[in-house]
């Protein structure tokens, strides 16, 4: 079994740091996930969406800027014609998306998944993201594509907090920025998920 190496392997250290006595932000890397892209042809949006929902065991497929949770993972609408299904494991083998509906692509290794939670999570993210992340305007189930330091990222809000998908090659650089900034709130880096083996 080959060992999977995280992009944060030499950058992530567990523990508390920053302003003493306070934990405003909790950060973790979520490992061992799969990320599948389902792209639809414009006239097949509905059918491809239903396929995506089935793949994630979701009741329905989400509209733009939204995600839904299913037994098979979280399904996000990341572009007008694209969904991302992020799941703790690879999706169950399926027949695959028929060519006439769209295209399917494994992007599991292209992103690093960071979870940001705690009372100052919104404050920390707003140190970088020009998005109104208040519960009123960005409630649980919201998805956005934005940028940190000019690097495109994907953000969604789940029950556990905010989730970031960072391009793997920039993940360490953005992680450094996030953790450096998090010191002002008082922060803790915790373990989440296990390194994956295959």
């Amino acid at each position, binding site marked *: *079994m*080959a*060992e*999977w*190496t*995280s*992009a944060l*392997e*030499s950058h992530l250290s567990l523990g508390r740091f*920053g*302003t003493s006595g306070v934990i405003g932000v909790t950060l973790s890397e979520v490992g061992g996930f799969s990320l599948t*892209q389902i*792209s639809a*042809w414009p006239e097949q949006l509905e059918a491809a969406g239903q396929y995506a929902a089935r793949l994630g065991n979701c009741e329905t497929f989400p509209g733009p800027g939204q995600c839904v949770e299913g037994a098979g993972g979280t399904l996000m609408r990341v572009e007008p*014609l*694209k969904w991302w299904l992020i799941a703790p494991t690879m999706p169950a083998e399926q027949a695959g998306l028929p*060519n*006439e509906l*769209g*295209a399917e*692509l*494994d*992007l*599991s*290794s*292209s*992103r690093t998944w960071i979870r940001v939670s705690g009372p100052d999570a919104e*404050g920390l993210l*707003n*140190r*970088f*993201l*020009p*998005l*109104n992340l*208040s519960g009123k*305007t960005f409630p649980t189930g919201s998805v956005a594509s934005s940028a940190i*330091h*000019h*690097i495109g990222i994907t953000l969604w809000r789940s029950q556990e907090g905010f989730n970031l998908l960072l*391009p*793997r*090659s*920039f993940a*360490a*650089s*953005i992680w*450094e*920025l996030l953790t*450096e*900034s998090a*010191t*002002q709130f*008082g922060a803790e880096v915790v373990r989440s998920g296990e390194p*994956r083996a*295959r």
Partner: protein
Amino acid sequence: MTARRLESGGRIDRNQKVTFDWDGKALSGFAGDTLASALMANGETVLGRSFKYHRPRGIMSAGVEESGAIVTVGKDTRREPNVKATMQELYDGLTATGQNAWPNVRFDLGAVNGLFSRFFAAGFYYKTFMGLPPFEWGSGTGLWMQYEKLIRRAAGMGTASRAPDPDHYDHAHGFCDVLVVGAGPAGLNAALTAAEAGRDVLLVEQDFELGGDYLNDPAAEPKRAELVTAVRNAGVHILTRTTAFGLYDDGTAGLLEKVTDHLRNPDPSLPRQRFWTVRAGATILATGALERSIAFENNDRPGVMTAAAARVYLNRYGVLPGTRILIATNNDSAYGTAVDLEAAGAQVTVIDSRAEQNAGTSERVSIQYGLAPLEALGRPNITGVELAADTGNGWKPAGKQGCDLLLISGGWSPVVNLSSHRGAKPAWNAEQACFLPGQTKEPIFHAGSAAGIWPREACETSGVAAAQRATGEAFQTIAPGGWARTIKPVYEVRASDRVSKAFVDFQHDVTGDDIRLAHQEGFVSVEHLKRYTTLGMATDQGRMGNVIGLALMADALGKDIPDVGTTRFRPPYTPVAIGALAGRNVAGHFKALRRTPLHDWNLRHGATMTEAGLWHRPWYFAQDGETIDEAYVREAATVRETVGICDVSSLGKIAVQGPDAAEFLNRVYSNGFAKLPVGKARYGIMLRDDGMVMDDGTTWRLGETDFLTTTTTAHAGKVMVWFEELLQTRWPDLKVHVSSVSDHWAGVSIAGPKSREAISAILQDGTDISNEALPFMGVAGVTLKGNIHALIARISFSGERAYELYVPAGFGEAMMDLLWPSAKALGGCLYGMEALGTLRIEKGHVTGAELDGRVTIDDAGLGKMASTKKAFIGSALRQRPELLRQDRPQLIGIFPKDKSQRFKGGSILCAPDGTSGFGDGWITAVTHSPALGHWIGIGYISGGVEAWRGLPVIASDPTRSGDVEVEIVSPHMVDPEGVRVHG
């Protein structure tokens, strides 16, 4: 000016003594002081020297408009110049020094400038030092450049530390329904009203306390405290020590929060300052108004300040700023100050330039009408005032009066800067003698004295009304004004027969005479006036002087003030540190660093890294003290002899999917892709619309509808954007999706005669990758030991038998842990970009250095690849006559004539008799070739190899290595038949 701290009163905490250092002298103040109030309480009067004449200056105000007490705070690496002492919160251990003076502000040798002040009028430097025969010549700027250095040294402000900034700064984004700027009577009421209407409100205050003018009135404290509590309870988000420095499009405001500037030992986790970008649904500007001075002789003497400032020092900081006080006013606002100062024990006289009687002041305050100050007497501090009487059409001397403090109230200027940023042109209101905020269609509303409303109660009501407007409720219109008696405009007081040094703009030493001089010299536009005299161009942007300057210009032109116009304010309202603009994007985070999946692995195995765009890539892997030259030559030689491994993960990788993917690629690339079989790769060149080469790379057909296109590292993003643009705008009918998978894959090139052997040893299931099973340009899926699924393609950039092996990025290190021992056992090496360059130059393969946007596919020697049977992007315009000329620069190889010599990249290729001018070509890249044993290069020359075969050529490098004689050869310098690649 004989100021003293009172035993009681004010908002300072007398139980918290604070010590600080002023110009090397240990002084003390109290918590709640500003640096200015503490210095005043300590009897310090001369705190600065003026910009041009080095005149002594003292405290002139109590706020952001300060033009006298401008000092340097901090020391060593934390030295910050041009800090207004009136805005600097006092803290224990604060160090401040005077600036623009030597040896100190109290005795400054630079004051000699004042003796020559009659020569230093506006325009003096330009007239004297530019184009003055016989001392000047040419275009008239040569000597000026020398003089300028001396002038800037003599005139100026403080200096910042030249060391790197030791502090860190933060950026933040904020959002609100209503942004309220200013927490005075109007701002607090506006914030409370908007919050109670259910709006999300952000209240911004540059002071460290909320209250604005309430803070200067002990009687108003209960009301202030109640309002502040109500505002907090209503959920208003409050930022103190924060200045809204600019308004921008769509309700965006720029704020600067001073997070730790007031702390001696701040928490290192906290940034020094924070730069906020706030998006607001509506903006209420309750920014107040600034009291104006009046121009009269020596109106800059220490001991002359605005009337309202004295009230601030008395009521907020418990400092009585003088004992014999003369207040000169032209409006009602100064009378409250007079009463308070008298009650505190001062002897107060008011001179009112208006003629009529006033009522309601203390009987102990003496009032004289129809008078104004003509000259401040005393040096350096004020000892008295020569008065002037209004003659109806001017002023005449009217005796002298002793005083130790002269307070001026020349009227009030609403702070209209922020709405001016949005293009709202301030409108002159003659009745109130001030500019009022201009109209804007944006949801920006003014409240309080920022709207020219003077009485406090009216300001409170206007705050409520502004919030009601912002929230779409019915509101009451509050008219500007509110004083019992009309202001009498007085901008300058001078006797007609006297030459005076009456300052209009204190920060830039601009006088009334400078304004008149500008008029005499023909300047009529306010914009030209500003530039000629530098009026309003200092850090206060003319807050104190603009109105007076305009009034004097209007007088000179025989016009009214509105006909002269006013300049438009631009951000920032107050200076913003460059560090705050940069935020965390400095040093290692100046730009995001991009790491390949093998980054750490490469470092652990001895890589020295180099930058390739945002990427860090291995440059070379030195062994046992090797230099870079020794390392890359060894690495390149090892590749040709056995095998080498190079991290190529940074190559752009795009998944092209869909039933029309082949057709799409066929249109994009100049060569054919429609019939590329599954399991095959093809090298392709894509052109821009104008026929120039855009990028190159290989495309692998993984399935009937699945392609993997690789791009150069440099152009990955550009090509991805190009593909999206083509699909969305030109060919929306094609069923194709493109997705960047650059980060999904870790990729290595395994090159050399033993490359197949090295790879075969790590395949899990003994997959056949022989010539027959995986021929040149073949592609296959394989499984490495450890069950790692991989893609392998037989492609070569080095000219050797070579493969590219891709695994999911997370398994990159695992792949290398298998592959490297296998290659090492065969005598192989790891190689970096330098050796990669050597190998490709030997083969004449092009990269970004050659494909620089000016090159056609024919220039690069690859014209035969371009299809003649299909249309593709650029196929029409590449046929332009200019691009088909035979003498266009074409790709060539370069050898030194004397093989022991070397030449450099960037050299110009010239005929021996043409080493001046542009030459005939250029060298794009050079290397020492281990295969050939001498230096070689690649580049372009007019007409290509055939035009220069056998002819002498000079590689000219006039700024570095000089001229080297070279010969032009085919770019395919090693193995031109390509035998090795198929081996």
